């Protein structure tokens, strides 16, 4: 899977209240949530983001609440991938589980600026910056997580596992 998109750049500790403020959590539809994505830290984001764009951020992206509404809002807003120096663990799990590609790559995060165009090859774990021409390699996902991604998220992965288990037991 290959992604080419314009970069939205944010700093460290972007929390889940910044990604989707709690006042919108009385709803859970992806499209409704997307309308308020990043609203409190970047009010222009929602109107200008294009399908396929990429979020690049610093340390501890997605810290705070367990709300899956956060990666759901990012994905539904059209963002194709998040690249950060590091992630809060619940956000990381949630993104994998719902099928939002996310990569951890400190060098790429440091050297990328807002408005750059990144080309990302997810299978190879390669990120190329169109402005500087530099290519960065990320460490591959562990096999278990790769299997979840390949299945299309945790729910389809679990369905497969459950039928395999009951077949094995029967």
């Amino acid at each position: 899977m290959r992604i080419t998109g314009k970069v939205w750049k944010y700093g460290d500790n972007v929390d889940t209240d910044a990604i989707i403020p709690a006042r919108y959590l009385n709803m859970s539809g992806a499209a409704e949530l997307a309308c308020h994505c990043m609203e409190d830290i970047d009010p222009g984001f929602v109107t200008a983001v294009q399908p396929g764009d990429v979020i690049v951020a610093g340390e501890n992206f997605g810290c705070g609440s367990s709300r899956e509404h956060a990666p759901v809002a990012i994905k539904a807003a059209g963002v194709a991938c998040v690249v950060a120096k590091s992630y809060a663990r619940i956000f990381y799990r949630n993104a994998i589980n719902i099928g939002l590609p996310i990569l951890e790559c400190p060098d790429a995060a440091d050297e990328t600026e807002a408005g750059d165009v990144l080309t990302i090859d997810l299978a190879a774990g390669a990120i190329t910056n169109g402005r500087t021409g530099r290519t960065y390699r990320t460490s591959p996902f562990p096999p278990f997580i790769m299997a979840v991604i390949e299945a299309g998220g945790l729910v389809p992965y679990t369905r497969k596992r459950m039928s395999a288990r009951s077949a094995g037991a029967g």
Partner: protein
Amino acid sequence: MGHTMAEKIIAAHLLDDDEAAASRSAQGGAPDVWPGDLVEVSVDLVLANDITAPIAIQEFAKLGVGGVFDPGRVVLVPDHFTPNKDIKSAEQCRAMRQFARAQELTTQFEVGRAGIEHVLLPERGLVVPGDVIVGADSHTCTYGALGAFATGMGSTDIAVAMATGHVWLRVPDTIRFVYSGQLQPWVGGKDLILYTIGRIGVGGARYMSMEFSGPAVRDLSMAARFTMANMAIEAGGKAGLFAVDETAQAYLAGRATRPGQVYEADEDARYSEVVEIDVSAIEPQVAFPHLPENARPASSAGDVQIDQAVIGSCTNGRIEDLRVAAFLLGGREVHPDVRCIIIPGTQQVYLDALREGLIESFIEAGAVVSTPTCGPCLGGHMGVLAAGERAISTTNRNFRGRMGHPNSEVYLAGPAVAAASAIAGHISTPEAVLA
């Protein structure tokens, strides 16, 4: 090489067909896990609330199983926007209630017979030592105060856990915190944890388990321990664990709904770091906007006028917290420029506070006392801030916009500093108010 508490609890919950367990028992050893292992474990309790359950229920339906793995071990709590603040919240709660009934969950919580999940579950004896508990709420880590490995996850993880009774985990590294020395007056669990997060930062324990230990911790009440474990996530932690001692056993007696299993860290457990903290030097703390790591002594806050003081939440909504607040507010008055909002964590806490006369003190002082709810903690209802307003709050997060308008500010503190500030009209200390 020995094991930490988290490693022991996880190892005891490995599934039979887990690869780590299988390879070890092939070698004739007992199940054994180390930091970094990806493992699958069984869970003892699965939790979701009125915000996270609706998505979990949708995802559960996609799994194509008929029922939850065990109707006695799935708990849904309406607490964030309840009593329903608007039509959308009412519909989320209805979806949750319908699911609970259809699945015949044995413990069904409802407004009027519930409270904030992380105060409620331990109070009702649903948490016992040695449990693995997963909740679709980041503050699920609160239960580590009772020696359970408890961690927050998202709705999809919880849907799978509700269906299978299993989750996948990466075995975390552990940081050990050793607290020694003598606690200063007015210093409680909240001050210790704010100070600790100030030391290591909001990412300081990312992906890790925090073990809270040392002589100063042994003197802490269960309420103080719940407060500290609650905020492990504010340092990025996966779990925050306390050893189970007589204080914990006394809390569990007559309350626990299942037998527990006590796991102790080995003497030679491998820690990624050991942080020594002398509590004698810690003053009552306040964390400035917009991160919990911006902790400093309340005495050095400077002149910070406040518009609102909130005392409650899963962090500090227990009876011990309300007693501290009532001690200061009793016979005094909330400053005319301040709205003081007090929220008991559960119906039981509310009733205890009523019987002890605390509610009377609060109302006479000019405070509002609300039914149990998360309410203002997440800017939901019952005390949302306008642009430019400032609150001091005993909650756990002061992110931008957390309690309302993106240009409002939240200062985190324990109940003593929050009550003192409500009286003074600016961030203050109990000593200053009592003087």
